[in-house]
């Protein structure tokens, strides 16, 4: 070591000691404290979100009135049509009906004030006791919300999974290629096409149905399997695949160009960093620069996007599924909203809320793994 370099040495060693001292004593307690605080905070966030959903799904208690009206109307109709009641005295009949109404209201819990029930719904939801649907049933005839959701989940995962994975990786790699050719004809074409995303996926779905199902008659109008269902397993796969093409294409087309445009701009910003220029000066190939100097530093953003995308699969595509008669969660949502079937709406929401909270929680730890600058619980 030369003499002139010495002034640096003590400084550097000091720095090192400080860091190791701090690191060894408090890492565990720092992470533990952070984890605890984070879990509590996320739990409150979930509880608030679900409570708001309960309030909104019940229209702040107004759904009670609708249901009371429905009960009265239903019972009155029933009594009028049933000849057995015609013999009864009007007073007696009135009394009997009142007792029936009371019984039915008690069955649905309408005898207790809405606020009390809202909190009971909340606690039930938070412990994942999803309860029974008011009117909807699963295909096996069960009113258990859990069974309804489990039954509708696989089709949604298939549709949303296929389209979102194609969309994510397709746009990521297209954007990476495009960011290398800034200002090229392809670049300009994608920018010009990005407003196509202003129309929703079901809008494209309608056109796809018109072209490929109604005019060309090559693909089915909707549903997930043909009727009657194929007898062999292979045939069944092919059949589902065929039904998948149009709704998945609708979902992909409606987001593809904007998504590419988004990622392309993102990569363009990161590719002007000094260290990218330095990597070029060092003689790295374009592929190495992309991998180590663009994708690697932006990995936290990419992971965030990807994990949020994975959990949004849960919500399904409400209108697209309805347009294509796809038997998924999105369509279930749509039906439940129409029927004021609050337990189904709340059941679906609570699972999504928990998934979201878990993802956010895990992401903090993943950031610390992929980015050395991030330390968990460091202020």
């Amino acid at each position, binding site marked *: 070591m030369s003499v002139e370099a010495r*002034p640096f040495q003590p400084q550097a060693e000091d720095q090192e000691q400080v860091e190791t001292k701090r690191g060894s004593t408090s890492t565990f307690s720092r992470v533990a404290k952070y984890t605890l605080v984070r879990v509590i905070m996320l739990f409150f966030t979930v509880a608030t979100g679900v409570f708001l959903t309960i309030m909104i799904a019940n229209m702040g208690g107004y759904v009670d009135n609708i249901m009371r009206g429905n009960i009265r109307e239903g019972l009155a109709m029933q009594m009028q049509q049933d000849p057995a009641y015609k013999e009864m005295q009007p007073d007696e009949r009135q009394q009997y009906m009142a007792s029936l109404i009371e019984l039915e209201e008690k069955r649905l819990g309408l005898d207790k004030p809405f606020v009390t029930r809202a909190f009971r719904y909340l606690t039930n939801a938070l412990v994942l006791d999803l309860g029974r649907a008011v009117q909807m049933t699963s295909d096996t005839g069960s009113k258990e919300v859990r069974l309804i959701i489990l039954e509708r989940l696989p089709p949604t995962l298939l549709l949303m999974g296929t389209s979102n994975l194609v969309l994510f990786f397709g746009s990521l790699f297209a954007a990476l290629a495009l960011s290398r050719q800034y200002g090229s004809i392809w670049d300009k074409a994608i920018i010009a096409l990005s407003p196509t995303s202003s129309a929703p996926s079901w809008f494209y779905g309608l056109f796809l149905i018109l072209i490929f199902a109604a005019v060309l008659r090559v693909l089915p109008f909707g549903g997930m399997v043909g009727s009657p269902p194929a007898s062999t397993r292979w045939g069944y796969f092919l059949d589902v695949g065929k039904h998948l093409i149009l709704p998945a294409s609708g979902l992909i087309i409606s987001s593809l160009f904007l998504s590419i445009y988004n990622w392309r701009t993102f990569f363009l910003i990161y590719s002007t960093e000094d260290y990218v220029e330095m990597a070029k000066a060092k003689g790295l*190939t374009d592929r190495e620069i992309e991998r180590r*100097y663009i994708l690697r530093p932006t990995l936290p953003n990419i992971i965030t996007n990807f994990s949020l995308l994975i959990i949004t699969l849960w919500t399904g595509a409400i209108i697209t599924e309805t347009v294509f008669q796809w038997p998924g969660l999105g369509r279930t949502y749509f039906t439940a909203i129409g029927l004021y079937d609050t337990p189904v709406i709340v059941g679906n929401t609570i699972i999504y809320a928990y998934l979201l909270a878990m993802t956010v929680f895990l992401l903090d730890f993943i950031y610390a793994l992929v980015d050395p600058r991030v330390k968990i619980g460091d202020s």
Partner: protein
Amino acid sequence: MAENNSSLLDVHDLKLHFRASAGIVQAVDGVNFQLNRNEAVVVLGESGCGKTSLAKALLRLLPRNVAEYSGEVYLGGEELMGLTDEEYRKQIRWVRMSMVPQAAMNALNPVLRVGDQVAEPMMIHAGIKKEEALAQARDMFSRVGVSADFLHRYAFELSGGMRQRVAIAMSLVTLPDLVVLDEPTSALDVLTQANIFNLLKRIKKEFEVSFILITHDIATSSELADRVAVMYAGQIVEVGDAESFFSAPLHPYAQKLMASVPRLRGDQELEFIIGKPPSLIDLPTGCRFAARCPRRFEKCDQDPPVFDMGNRRIVKCWLYEGN
């Protein structure tokens, strides 16, 4: 002249123009200079005179909006401008020419260990294994005064001076002939600056490497300079060896520039140059310094040629016509 054998870099009429919304920016506009092996040339000039663009033109680090990139650059007798990008990458980048960036903080990848980044060029160009490359990086670290432990650190864990040393180690690791230093110390405090300059001086001797040092810091750079090139409005207006330049600059701009540097002894008032450099988009037709020149005369309305003053000294000013 004997120097021709040891000539490392010859630049002829190098041009780098950019397209901007207001017009064409003539950042490097016909630059000529020559550099010998194991020589350090300091490129002096105000901000915005095209110094950094000159570095980028030499290193072929071109932005997307290049309008013109031309001229001839000979490195050790080989013409560089005719090489394809892939040839240039394989034969020149970091093999024969490397660089030290202005701010090492941004020039180091924040998520890769600095040791890996220093070892990287050897793995690409010499094709050696990672362990071997890291061993060489470790050796290079000790030669620039960085502890070997720092190989496993990240850029954000190092001080500014340390980062700059890492960047210097990185520039030398493949033993190139020429290192381009773009204001390597402008982001550092004075003490650290002095340290880095001492290090560079030692390295130049040890590695027999040539430096192109781009700076606006006249005082500090005089420590390292063998030769000085003064740049004004995209052109080089004077080149000379350091000793004769610092004792008697020829070009009026260089004279004014030198007069603006404080000296320890003598009671001279610091001078400044009235006006500002011309916009690189809208350049005057004659001498580009004429509008600010105290010694302006009729001839200055025409663009002056480069006058050879002998002893590898050139000046682009009508005052020296016929010398």
